């Protein structure tokens, strides 16, 4: 019988052997990253552009332009495009963020050659037919109205608008009037400027080989090569309105709380330290927010924090849902936890645990045949170096309690957060 009181020895992940796939070029000149994994039978192609909602003229424009690329060309209707993909078991999806747009194509390897002609047509000749645009707007409008019934939608929206302003690129919430006003010509212009096929960076992951690369080269060499990459977006500085904003939702019996603040862009050496600090705040199950508010007090199903890329830097965000009676106690607890991070910074076992968690998760996130594109896209968006992930792990292991206290003092002053409550606030809007 084993001694169950005696834990097996565990080893921390202190180094990574990983190096991201190196940039290559297809013979036609298109940038390429390739992460092959044989014998899967399937592969994924991601086309990536470094432009997203930050460069749009009105909300929903960037996302509509990306999604509706598959809405029709001069010679193919939306139905024909979808049918040609689906009949070969292939699928496509589109994603638009603040600083990037991408198309992801999943296909059975042997069927890639069948969908390449359709892909060429979409990239070269997307025409944004009026009927498809009208339908898209109608469906999106209805979907948006449903989202607007949830407290979580409003707390995040109000909080980010208080931080960055209603029409800021950093808030990125679709305005119903903007959605209605989007026109065919502006989508064509957007596509031509920011989503030119020849200007995409291509990622291939999964079951790919030389034949795959030849097929893709054939695809991209047929695209118009006179297109040039667009310039970069400009961002307005944050407003950082820190007073409390509320929205009452008459049918809600919970409150969604959101707190956010802006932090200027930090170096690749400092970002892992902020990520580690975020872990202690609300970045994992063992965080102070989760342990105190969920596991100790049972006030919430989930509360957490994250630090994401904004236009000029990063956005810290804390969010969670709770019973309306518990909103005040939750806010007080969050305040105490934020202050506690510099008055009583993580050390000893708490610090060691988070570092080990970070190392294990970082290595685990590289697992699997389709992990590579996301890792490299993060580097492209941030401009961080190729060896960022190894450096990050070294930085984590050399970060001490005093450094965390200093960072918490500088970055997590509770009075520097915008706060929004939505749901059963009991107050008229």
């Amino acid at each position, binding site marked *: 019988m*084993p001694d169950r009181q005696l834990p097996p020895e565990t080893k921390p992940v202190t180094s990574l052997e990983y190096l991201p796939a190196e940039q290559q070029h297809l013979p036609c000149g298109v940038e390429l990253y390739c992460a092959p994994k044989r014998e899967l039978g399937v592969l994924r192609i991601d086309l990536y552009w470094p432009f997203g909602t930050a460069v749009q003229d009105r909300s929903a424009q960037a996302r509509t332009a990306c999604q509706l690329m598959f809405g029709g060309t001069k010679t193919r209707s939306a139905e024909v495009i*979808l049918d040609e993909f*689906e009949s070969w078991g292939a699928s496509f999806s589109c994603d638009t963020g603040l600083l990037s747009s991408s198309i992801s194509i999943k296909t*059975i390897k042997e069927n890639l050659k069948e969908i390449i002609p359709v892909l060429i047509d979409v990239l070269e000749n997307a025409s944004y037919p009026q009927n498809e645009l009208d339908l898209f707007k109608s469906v999106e409008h209805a979907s948006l109205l*449903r989202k607007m019934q949830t407290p979580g939608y409003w707390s995040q929206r109000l909080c980010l608008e208080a931080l960055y302003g209603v029409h800021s690129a950093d808030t990125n919430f679709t305005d119903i009037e903007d959605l209605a006003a989007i026109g065919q010509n502006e989508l064509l212009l957007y596509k031509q400027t920011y989503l030119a096929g020849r200007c995409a960076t291509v990622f291939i992951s999964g079951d790919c080989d030389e034949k795959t690369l030849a097929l893709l080269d054939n695809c991209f060499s047929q695209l118009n090569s006179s297109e040039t990459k667009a310039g970069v977006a400009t961002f307005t500085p944050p407003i950082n309105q820190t007073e409390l904003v509320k929205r009452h939702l008459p049918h809600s019996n919970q409150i969604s709380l959101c707190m956010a603040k802006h932090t200027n862009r930090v170096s690749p050496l400092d970002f892992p330290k902020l990520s580690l600090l975020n872990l202690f705040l609300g970045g994992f199950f063992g965080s102070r927010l989760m342990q105190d508010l969920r596991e100790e007090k*049972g*006030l919430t199903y989930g509360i957490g924090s994250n630090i994401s890329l904004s236009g000029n830097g990063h956005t810290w965000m804390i969010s969670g849902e709770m019973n309306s009676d518990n909103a005040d106690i939750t806010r007080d607890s969050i305040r105490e936890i934020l202050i506690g991070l510099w008055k009583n910074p993580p050390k000893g076992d708490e610090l060691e645990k988070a570092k080990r968690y970070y190392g294990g998760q970082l290595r*685990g996130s590289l697992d699997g045949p389709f992990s590579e594109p996301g890792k490299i896209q993060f580097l492209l968006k941030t401009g961080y170096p190729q060896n960022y992930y190894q450096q990050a792990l070294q930085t984590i292991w050399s970060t001490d309690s005093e450094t965390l206290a200093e960072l918490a003092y500088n970055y997590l002053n509770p009075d520097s957060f915008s706060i929004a409550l939505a749901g059963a606030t009991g107050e008229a809007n």
Partner: protein
Amino acid sequence: MIAYNTFKLNNGLRVIHHYDPDSTVVILNTLFNVGARDESPDKTGFAHLFEHLMFGGSVNIPEYDKVVEKAGGSNNAYTTNELTNYYITVPHENAETAFWLESDRMLSLDFSQKSLDVQKGVVCEEFKQRCFNAPFGLLWHHIRELLYKESSYRWPTIGLELKHIEDASLDDVKSFFYKFYHPRNAILCVAGKISQEKSLEYCEKWYGDISPSGVENPNNYIQESLPISRRFIETTDLSPNTAVFMVWRGPDFSKPESAALELFSEMLGGSENGPLYQELVKKSGVFNAAECFYTRGIGEGLFVLYGILNDGVEASKGEKLLWDVFHKAQQGTLFTEKNLKTAKNKATSALLFEKSSLINKAQKLCYFENLGLLSEINEENRQYGKVEMTDLMHSVATISQDNVSVIYYHPKSNNA
């Protein structure tokens, strides 16, 4: 193809090993043969509440999550009407810690009133968030209430009402654990960068001494006959648009007809090129969403077809339009052999992508073993391949307006 080996410990624990040399992690996926269908009608939501308590510490390890995190790992779980599934992922060099953790909570939990009280609060907030603060949050309550009158499938996993969760006692927790959480009622899959020999060694070491007390869940439930009349609920919802949901019960996962129904639902409403979307959203513009899907469970299959209407359209008109499209599909006038081939190709592709994920493979291996169909895990695609057009038509032949369960959701006034 998913390669695997199986062995069984003396205490009855069934173990499946899947080796993936390319991975850097080891996953332990544990399926317990217990779900919401095993609850008492006055104590619903308990299996799910219990899932939360499994993270509250075991007899020798008071802080489960702390140990997982210190090993660089992560973990989670889910509960359905038919099973409860736990999974933990750790760096491969820390694999033994996962065995230690998972075996200790199978050995015995550290039952505590405080942990129960806290998790009741957590689950009540989850209940409110999912059911009362999102459009169609009570859909599965309504669907199950309509489809079943006696069977323990008549409530959703989250539970019938908050009070059932609030009333759960420590005695309930203990008796549930001793009845369902033991080696004979569990299946363990060890997957990732760990050899079969090492897996067996750790299994014997950490699980071998757990008492074989308890019997495997016999899974005896009231076999409720299929509805033979139209069942109907009309209610209000947070959705700003009226919606119509139509549901039928059908064959479970083990029946070949269920694969035909899955393909039929994919062809009818699994894509924007399907007739539901094309006719009702795109051409007529009456709906802003129209879809259908077939869920293939262990003891039930559910065909769900729904549409969300645009402003000003009556629910009854919406239902009629949904029926018009469905009837055409049922009569075979909408689909060609090409449509069927497309649905099969999509299924093939989905299966291949699913098999590229280690956690998906581990969970699927346990699921098939629980069904008693492990040897058929690599035959799924063949099952779809065998479906002919006549099978499709046969599978939906009995669906009619006389055995449908229908829900109309109308917008609440003063929506946000």
